[in-house]
């Protein structure tokens, strides 16, 4: 419960940053990280709720970000079954692809230059998530958390 509360506090804070001063897809990166570290069901629920938070704070169409995050989370779950998704060689191209996919779904402009910078951010986000939530198990092999 504590981990979920902390995760949502971090998500709300990052959402406010993303909608005011930081022109980066922070929440999408968090969704990606969570989808790589948690089992599928929990990742999907988080993706949905994170999308709602982002839409409400940013004033965007409610449900659109949730829709996009769910698709990205699904692809991430499928991807990590086939590849060592947390290895940078697989993680970076997949992150770039996820940014493009989310931009297409949410009908936003996609700039490959800023997408590249966002892609590099996942190398910071993923270790940070592991650090903040040491109880999570990689690749969702077990269910360490109960929301």
């Amino acid at each position: 419960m504590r981990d979920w509360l902390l995760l949502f506090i971090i998500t709300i804070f990052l959402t406010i940053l993303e909608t005011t001063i930081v022109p980066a897809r922070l929440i999408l990166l968090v969704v990606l990280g969570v989808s790589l570290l948690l089992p599928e069901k929990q990742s999907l629920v988080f993706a949905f709720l994170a999308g709602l938070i982002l839409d409400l704070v940013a004033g965007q169409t409610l449900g659109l970000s949730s829709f996009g995050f769910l698709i990205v989370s699904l692809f991430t779950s499928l991807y990590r079954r086939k590849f060592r998704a947390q290895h940078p060689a697989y993680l970076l191209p997949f992150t770039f692809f996820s940014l493009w996919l989310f931009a297409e779904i949410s009908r936003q402009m996609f700039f490959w230059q800023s997408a590249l910078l966002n892609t590099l951010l996942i190398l910071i986000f993923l270790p940070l998530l592991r650090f903040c939530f040491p109880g999570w198990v990689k690749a969702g092999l077990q269910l360490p958390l109960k929301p």
Partner: protein
Amino acid sequence: MGAGRTWQFLPTFLLLLFLSLLLILLESRGWTRPFHQSIEVVVNPAKKEIYRFFQKKVRNPWLFLTSLPSQAEKINSLQKQVQELLPEKEKARALLEENKILRRQLGAPLPPSWQFLPAQTLGKTDFLTLDKGEKDGVKVGQMVVLENILVGRVARILPRQSQVELPTAPSAKIPVVAQETRARGILQGQFGQSFVLERVPQGETLKENDLLVTTGEGDYLTGLLVGKIAQIERIETEVFQKAQVIPLLDYQKLETVFLVFP
């Protein structure tokens, strides 16, 4: 891991996907406005405070970080006195600043029939977010100015917020004319950072440091300054010439802007 177990999460996924689509449908009919309204009441002040802190304090992040240790001691010793005076000082500063901005706006060379609604900026990412929305009479397509300089055009409105498309946005295409040479062209935003003047016929004259103003076409009001020509790019074999244009405003530093009611 068998296929059955692999897809155990599918019902959850489909349910959440359905909920998302349902929310999108409800949003399209305007039924989610009460949620947006109640969230904006809470979130707008927080966004404004964070954005102002960033604008005022974190202009030079390295300087800010390295000065923290010495600042901490100084702050501790002065805190008692400052605590009593700070609210009053802030109130007075805000009023003085607002007064100055309003006076400048009223003195700007714009048609006297135009009316202005001041709005505070809440953040700048792909759009500039303002704290005025549908409840304040704001409409999509409305111009936003600071004095007689174009800030942008309202692209999206919410009950208490609006999002402004800046001239530097890639989707912005503003018909402009150079003040001195009267050359006409289209100002095209680039990557949210700058803009370029395009589609200027080769026969027209462009001059560096010439100011560009809106022509009144393309749903933009006429006579608003937008930028200054910096570098002209002219290739004789091409039909059009172009020029790099410098914005007249630092969009990151805007605190108060004005919505125009012509």
